[in-house]
């Protein structure tokens, strides 16, 4: 399959982390407003974007996601006052690190959406899906799982040599 064909048929899977107060509600609002957007983003609700640990992002990418979206309340509007700034700081550092692993910045997108911004949130998703489509699949190779080649049971040591 040529690269061109790839971008045409490739449907990325993206994990989205949303905060309970703004961005998840923005997604709810997009729903109640029947705003259409591509079905590629699967959301995980956390209480605050400050809860989002780079480990989650790395895990999602290494478990097969093509991209990760992190969404929180707008700066200055965090339900927990200022925790979205911590999300912002972690995102900046994560991006720098991911670049060294060959992961393009567009694959890990940070966005702000208030609970009123259903349309904006849908637009953000559409934009991200589009960008990740252009990049193609990430397909991070699964971690090797060693099996077999171990003696079935390990005897209690005190029996050995007796």
């Amino acid at each position, binding site marked *: 399959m040529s690269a061109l064909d790839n971008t045409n048929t490739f449907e990325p899977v993206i994990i989205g982390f949303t905060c309970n107060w703004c961005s998840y509600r923005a997604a709810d609002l997009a729903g109640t407003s029947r705003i259409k957007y591509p079905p590629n983003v699967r959301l995980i609700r956390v209480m605050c974007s400050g809860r989002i640990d780079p*480990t989650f992002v*790395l895990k999602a*990418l290494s478990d097969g996601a093509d991209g990760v979206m992190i969404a929180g309340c707008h700066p200055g509007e965090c339900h927990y006052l200022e925790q979205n700034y911590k999300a912002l700081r972690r995102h*900046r*550092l994560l991006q*720098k690190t991911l670049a060294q692993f060959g992961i393009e910045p567009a694959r890990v997108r940070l966005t702000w959406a208030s609970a009123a911004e259903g349309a904006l949130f849908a637009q953000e998703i559409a934009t991200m899906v589009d960008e990740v489509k252009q990049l193609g699949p990430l397909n991070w190779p699964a971690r090797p799982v060693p099996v077999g*080649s171990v*003696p079935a049971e390990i005897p209690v040591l005190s029996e050995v040599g007796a």
Partner: protein
Amino acid sequence: MSKPKFAMYWAAACGGCEIAVLNIDEKVLDLDANFEVAFWPAAMDVKYKDVEAMEDASILVTLFNGSIRTDENEHMARLLRRKSRILVAFGSCANEGCIPGLANLSSRESLFERVYQANATSPSTENPNNLRPQASSQVPEGTLTLPPLQAVIRTLDQVVEVDYHVPGCPPESRQIAAVLDALIAVVKGEAELPPKGAVLGAGNSTVCDECARKRDVKQIGKISRIQELPPLATDVCLLEQGLMCAGPATRSGCDSRCPNVGAPCIGCYGAAPGVLDQGARLMTAIASVVDANEPDAIDRVLDGIPDPAGSFYRFSLAHSLLRANRAALAEKP
């Protein structure tokens, strides 16, 4: 009465782990007293074929140090797994790839280029004919072979099942001695084996726990390298003085040797218990306490870490969630 067999092997590693074992001084005599050393290339001459000839599971315990970089490393890992009842990943290389694991940020080709190219940037390279090592080459005497280099470095537990882990680069001699004592106690029937998969010879917290420096609430406005800073206070947290210290995210057990003498922890004991990815923990910790809220200002602080992946994953890259650079992973093994 025959003594249980002991083996130690050195795959892709620097040899420091072997030195560390010898560093336990007279304790090594206890090893000899309680075990028959069946295979230990660094200490005695036994051929691979001798090992192959041994019965499966006839070695009681093998301390395996070094990571899996070549086909030979992999072969020996599998062989020793088969021959050993207890396989211990010994030292940082075997457990998480260690410094050699940083090669996973580069493709095999770029590694060869860097090391063997005539005009390579490496100052120690002198190779006017651009010779490269070959897996096999013909000489008048016959065929010479070299074990092929694999695409990425793997840790021992990514290749075979591992029973116990002893972290450290190298493991502290005091800790090695304690592990040996525990093993001997088990052999003598004075103790039970720890649960499979346990980490031995280390603590349950992080390096800060053993660090004597005073710590305060953190707000980092600038990160510098040690040579860029004025002489450091001897009793204040290094991170608070603007140094990247991996102590907060690194398993305890080393007695916080480096920070206590003024050098920042570089993370050789690996992740704290229960942690999936040491680099991610260090990354999130540092980023959380950056004293800036605007993207540009945040970047200015973070620019003090010129090589983030190398800094956060100095020892644990090969064992991390991502393991390697995408291009390196995409190569044929």
